[in-house]
């Protein structure tokens, strides 16, 4: 129903008159046909059809016009005496008045219906347009990125000629960030424009002309743009600008409502963006604070512990009132030396950690024999290992590995030192290596208390500490992170699992050098058989 109605409306008064005339002629012909040859006495009711049709299609005035015309036609053509406007029979008056009343009533009804239908259409369009804006905003990653889509929706649904959105940050001049038009973005603000003044309560907003005093007026602006200010939190963020179609006048009430609603939604969206970003920043700051304090705690323990030993040992040597034996002096001096070396490793780990995090590791890979690295590390850590038993199993058939020997040294030292922390003196730490198809797996395992399964996957995370176990000691949490970082920088992989010895086993997989395939395959077969 609304479709044809809306269509008919476009015919204008001339078209409406013409169509009404056609309908009246058609009715006249029908009356002639029915009254004459067929002999129906009340065929005049046929004119009702034409009156109803005209009133329904073109409204009350057309209905009244049609009923008067029908009255006259009928009077002239069919009421005795014919071909005069005289009405002899008073009964015919009733016919004519009925025609007139029906014409007016139907016209009114049709007009009300049409106006309601038109309102419904307008509302639907407005709702669709708002939905388009909402959808663009709801599915946004960032409000800035959907501004083009919003401008497009407004252009289409508010029947505008051009829509652009300007954003101003911190009182700066507006910058056009979305524009449906092509070519140079319009100058913002223009010399003169209309701005939407919002009214409190239900009062509709109204357009107010504004002149920008600082901008020299263009000679003759083709048309004046309309501006709706984007606000959030009582702060102006920017504006939606619109140019109406040529000769269209200001946007109609519905279009104005749409522009205002879109501006409100954009304002809220920007506010949400801002709050979300604030929350993110706070989260980032918190995380980085946590990391910093974890690093400080860790570093302070790792540095202070060897320093405590060094100061105690130095105190023994330098105190003039003491009379230490030669053995005491040597032992204290050795402790100083050993702990200085340990401190050096802590510092190296810290530097490596920052290189790992900054992606600045540049390993110098070369074919390396594992025992060439393992033995010197153990030699250096001999004092640290004290009475712990280190069982090294490196088969002679082991292929060379592709590693940076300096990194591998640090990896093994960290793993052995870590094991030392949890293995009581007299107990075992095992280092062994087996060749796999394309890799060599080096395993460092201990007979300490071990790590709960759920903690294994987190072991290499920075500052991670196993909770609720005897492994939980302050100061750990960098060594294994560095192990992983260095291993991965060399194209290897490191994993943790429970050891057969009862403690923790860490597997470091390294690329094996290309040659010596034969030996490796033999070894592989041997391993496979053993399993």
């Amino acid at each position, binding site marked *: 129903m609304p479709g044809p109605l809306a269509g008919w409306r476009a015919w204008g008064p001339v078209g409406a008159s013409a169509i009404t005339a056609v309908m009246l002629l058609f009715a006249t012909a029908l009356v002639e046909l029915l009254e004459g040859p067929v002999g129906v006495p009340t065929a005049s009711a046929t004119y009702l059809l034409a009156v109803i049709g005209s009133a329904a299609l073109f409204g009350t005035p057309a209905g009244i016009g049609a009923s008067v015309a029908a009255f006259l036609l009928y009077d002239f053509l069919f009421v005795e005496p014919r071909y005069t406007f005289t009405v002899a029979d008073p009964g015919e008056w009733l016919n004519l008045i009925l025609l007139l009343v029906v014409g007016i009533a139907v016209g009114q009804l049709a007009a009300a219906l049409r106006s309601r239908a038109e309102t419904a259409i307008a509302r639907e369009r407005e709702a669709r347009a708002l939905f388009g804006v909402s959808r663009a905003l709801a599915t946004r990653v960032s409000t800035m990125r959907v501004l083009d889509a919003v401008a497009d929706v407004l252009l289409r649904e508010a029947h505008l000629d051009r829509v652009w959105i300007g954003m101003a940050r911190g009182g700066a001049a507006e910058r056009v960030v979305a524009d449906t038009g092509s070519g140079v973005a319009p100058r913002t603000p223009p010399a003169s424009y209309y701005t939407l003044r919002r009214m409190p309560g239900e009062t509709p907003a109204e357009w107010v002309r504004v002149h920008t005093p600082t901008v020299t007026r263009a000679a003759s602006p083709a048309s004046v743009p309309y501006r709706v200010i984007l606000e959030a939190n009582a702060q102006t963020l920017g504006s939606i600008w619109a140019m109406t179609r040529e000769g269209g006048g200001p946007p109609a009430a519905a279009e104005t409502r749409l522009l205002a609603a879109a501006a409100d939604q954009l304002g809220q969206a920007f506010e949400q963006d801002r709050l979300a970003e604030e929350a993110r920043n706070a989260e980032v700051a918190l995380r980085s604070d946590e990391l910093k304090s974890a690093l400080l705690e860790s570093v*302070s*323990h790792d540095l*202070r*512990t*060897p*320093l*405590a*030993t*060094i*100061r*105690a*040992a*130095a*105190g*023994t040597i330098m*105190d003039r009132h*003491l*009379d*230490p034996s030669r053995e*005491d002096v040597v*032992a*204290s001096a050795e*402790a100083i030396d*050993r*702990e200085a070396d340990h401190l050096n490793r802590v510092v190296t780990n810290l530097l490596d950690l920052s290189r790992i995090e900054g992606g600045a590791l540049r390993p110098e890979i070369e074919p390396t024999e594992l025992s060439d690295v393992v033995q010197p590390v153990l030699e250096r850590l001999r004092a640290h290992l*004290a009475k712990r038993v280190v069982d090294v199993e490196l088969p002679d058939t082991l292929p060379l590995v592709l590693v940076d020997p300096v990194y591998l040294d640090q990896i093994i030292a960290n793993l052995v030192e870590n094991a030392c922390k949890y293995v009581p*003196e007299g107990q075992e730490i095992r280092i062994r290596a087996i060749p796999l198809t394309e890799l060599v797996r080096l395993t460092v395992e201990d007979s300490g208390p071990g790590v709960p399964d759920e903690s294994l996957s987190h072991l290499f995370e920075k500052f991670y500490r196993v909770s609720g176990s*005897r492994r939980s*000691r*302050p100061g750990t949490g960098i060594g294994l992170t560095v192990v992983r970082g260095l291993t991965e920088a060399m194209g290897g992989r490191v994993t943790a699992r429970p050891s057969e010895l009862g403690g923790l086993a860490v597997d470091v997989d390294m690329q094996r050098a290309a040659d010596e395939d034969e030996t490796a395959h033999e070894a592989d077969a041997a391993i496979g058989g053993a399993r």
Partner: protein
Amino acid sequence: MSARRPSVLLVEDDDPTRTELARNLRLNGYDVMEAAMVETALQHWEQRRPDLIVLDLGLPDGDGMSVLFAARKEATTPVVILSARGEERAKVVALNRGADDYLTKPVGTAELNARLRAVLRRAAGPAADAQGIVRNGSVELDPMAHVVRVAGRVVDLTPREYQILALLLSHPGHLVTRGRILRAVWGEAYQGDDHLVHVHVSKLRQKLGEADASGDTRGLIVTEPGVGYRVREARPES
């Protein structure tokens, strides 16, 4: 003469640090027992009743504070915390809960020894003079040298006898019950073994008496029948 060295229980989990501190303390005249964990520290405390405890807080099997609590439950043995935790809060908590001093690692050995001497001196109670030496008549107890003299002559006391005398001398004029002596010198497990105290006090009186020709020590330790002992008000040797 067998001036016993003051005994220190050194609780520290880091092996190299403990080894070096122990070496230094031994050279400074202490009898050092070492513990790397709460468990061994408590064993030492129960069995040997050190004169002094140096305590690290972060231990692999628990918080060092539990050693402090165990000691405080039974005796006033000085406890010096030696920890890497340097925040004010940690210090306040430890001192509030009965620690006598708090040192942050790394500490110089000169400072450590000075602090230990200071708490030992204070441990002798208000009866002690500036050097920590307690005098009562002709009897003189030096907690630093861990020696007792009567009229200038060193008296050979067993560790328990020494501890009983130190406890009594630090509370001149006050009643010290047998139960308290048992707790402080032997430990909670010996509660009820009053005869132990009786035997040791008799022996102590005898040794003091033998050392003193003038008979001044005869009235030093007064028995409060069925309850405990009291040392007469301190009066300087005339």
